[in-house]
């Protein structure tokens, strides 16, 4: 171990090599991450729960398995799980007062799969309450800080997962993405984050937000690691009826360094008014780099319904949320208002004190859009606009292998800047939420910096084209070193 300066900075791929050749043990690697957490957590506040005892017992078991010849790619490697994925016997809060003391009696399918692969669960990450938000400021527990500038937000809702990876608290993390919640924080923290195609990864045990949009995916330090994690978590699950019964390829096989013949489209509607100049400049430079590698880029692509995506999303997602969150009634689990014997009062007060402002806002918005007299004008209208947005993507993918956009219109903003204006906050998901509306896969990878603050590039593919996306992302990454830059913290 003496030769390795800081094991917590290893990628999955690097850590695996060292574990395989016994240059490091899983216990040593886990201890290094726990030490790093102890040092850095007071500054970044990325974690809701640190599962040190569980992690060390899993690490000991992994070391035994490695000694007996089990060399699964994720074995013995520490991971962070977003706190909206159920972990048996480990508190799962959704960063909400409603679930502050909720201890799930079962594991989410993704957690079960990671456990089966010998992963070491080191903690649960902070998030916007019930995954509703773009800055992790909506956590009812505490805000998380961006390691590139502690005064700024890490993005959200998977802010804790992105920070955990960027600040080397663990080797990788899982997040969930309903409108950009993996990709936007990945972009803001300069890590790799992928939202797979809707249906690619089982959502059994993921606390539901908007069921036609939610998807689980990896946050990693590079594209190879992203492929390795996807290999483990993807696949059909009979317990999630929206998971698809398609075979899972080995996603590491598609990684290549040349892109001859690859057709890239850049939809102009994504370069909106108000987009930071450095962000569009970084994406232009990145596309030039991809052209050097053999790709052909077309800047004249138009997706004319893009300007309606935000409104459609913020009708559909809150509508689904208002139905999903109806389950929090203070009876079966979660917070329960104690000081009344009246059923209706108990129900209303439980929800009044259990939910934070953004969750209430979305329940109100969704309930309104679904209510009698407004359903056709709002919810049904949004669902029809959704069809048009999908069709537009389908048409674009007849001509292009992938579409490229910035992940966010700006670099990370200051903590507190947008909390008073919900609509301004919603706008930071402008480039990511159309992808959930259409159910497509997309990745955010590091693509530059503006005055020391990260810029992410989003690569979008047609349904189940994760391999194409990973191939292009990998080629870009190998030709640049943005992903190797780490925050000085």
């Amino acid at each position: 171990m003496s030769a390795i300066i800081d094991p917590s900075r290893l990628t999955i791929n690097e850590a695996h090599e060292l574990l395989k050749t016994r240059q490091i043990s899983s216990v040593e690697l886990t201890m290094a991450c726990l030490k790093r957490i102890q040092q850095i957590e007071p500054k970044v506040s990325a974690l809701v729960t640190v599962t040190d005892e569980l992690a060390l017992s899993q690490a000991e078991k992994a070391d035994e398995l490695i000694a007996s010849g089990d060399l699964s790619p994720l074995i013995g490697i520490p991971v962070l799980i977003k706190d909206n994925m159920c972990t048996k016997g480990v508190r799962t809060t959704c960063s909400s007062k409603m679930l502050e003391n909720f201890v799930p009696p079962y594991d989410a399918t993704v957690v079960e799969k990671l456990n089966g692969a010998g992963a070491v669960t080191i903690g649960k990450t902070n998030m916007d309450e019930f995954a509703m938000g773009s800055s992790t400021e909506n956590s009812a527990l505490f805000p998380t800080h961006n390691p590139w500038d502690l005064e700024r937000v890490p993005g959200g809702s998977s802010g804790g997962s992105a920070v955990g990876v960027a600040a080397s608290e663990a080797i990788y993390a899982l997040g969930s993405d309903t409108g950009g919640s993996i990709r936007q924080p990945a972009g803001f923290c300069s890590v790799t984050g992928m939202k797979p195609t809707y249906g690619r990864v089982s959502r059994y045990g993921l606390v539901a937000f908007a069921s036609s949009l939610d998807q689980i995916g990896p946050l990693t330090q590079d594209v190879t690691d992203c492929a390795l994690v996807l290999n483990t978590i993807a696949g059909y699950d009979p317990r999630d009826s929206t998971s698809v019964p398609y075979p899972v390829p080995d996603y590491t096989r598609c990684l290549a360094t040349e892109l001859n013949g690859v057709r890239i489209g850049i939809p102009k509607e994504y370069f909106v008014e108000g987009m930071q100049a450095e962000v569009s400049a970084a994406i232009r430079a990145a596309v030039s780099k991809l052209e050097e590698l053999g790709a052909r880029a077309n800047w004249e692509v138009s997706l004319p319904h893009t300007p309606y995506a935000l409104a459609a999303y913020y009708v559909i997602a809150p509508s689904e949320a208002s139905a999903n969150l109806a389950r929090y009634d203070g009876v079966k689990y979660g917070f329960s208002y104690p000081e009344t014997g009246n059923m209706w009062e108990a129900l209303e007060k439980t929800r009044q004190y259990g939910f934070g402002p953004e969750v209430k806002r979305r329940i109100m918005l969704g309930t309104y859009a679904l209510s009698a007299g407004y359903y056709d004008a709002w919810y049904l209208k949004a669902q029809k606009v959704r069809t048009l947005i999908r069709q537009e993507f389908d048409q674009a993918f007849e001509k292009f292998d992938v579409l490229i956009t910035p992940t966010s219109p700006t670099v990370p903003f200051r903590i507190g800047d947008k909390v008073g204006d919900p609509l301004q906050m919603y706008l930071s998901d402008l480039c990511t939420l159309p992808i959930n509306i259409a159910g497509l896969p997309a990745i955010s990878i590091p693509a530059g910096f503006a005055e020391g603050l990260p810029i992410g590039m989003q690569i979008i593919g047609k349904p189940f084209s994760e391999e194409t996306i990973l191939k292009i992302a990998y080629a870009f990454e190998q030709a640049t070193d943005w992903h190797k830059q780490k925050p000085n913290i």
Partner: protein
Amino acid sequence: MKLGREEVLRIATLARLGLAEAEVDRFKEQLSHILESFEILQQVDTTGVPPTTQAITLKNVLRSDEVATSLPQDQVLANAPQKDGDFFKVRAVLGDT
């Protein structure tokens, strides 16, 4: 789309969401502002366009009706705010108490 106070209270009742006085006023302003900006949806011609409820094309996913293991009762009840023996305890549904 300007929401009035009555409308906010009506929605809150539908959602079974208690609101403090200050929240009623805040939501009246914020939701009005949000809905006003979302009115651009009405500009889109959706004549003859079917709605999309989810983006993948799986239909009628069925499973065979077989008995499988469930969680043990004590684990299911472990998170209950109030329980009585093997039951979840609820407030009286009928009557005032």
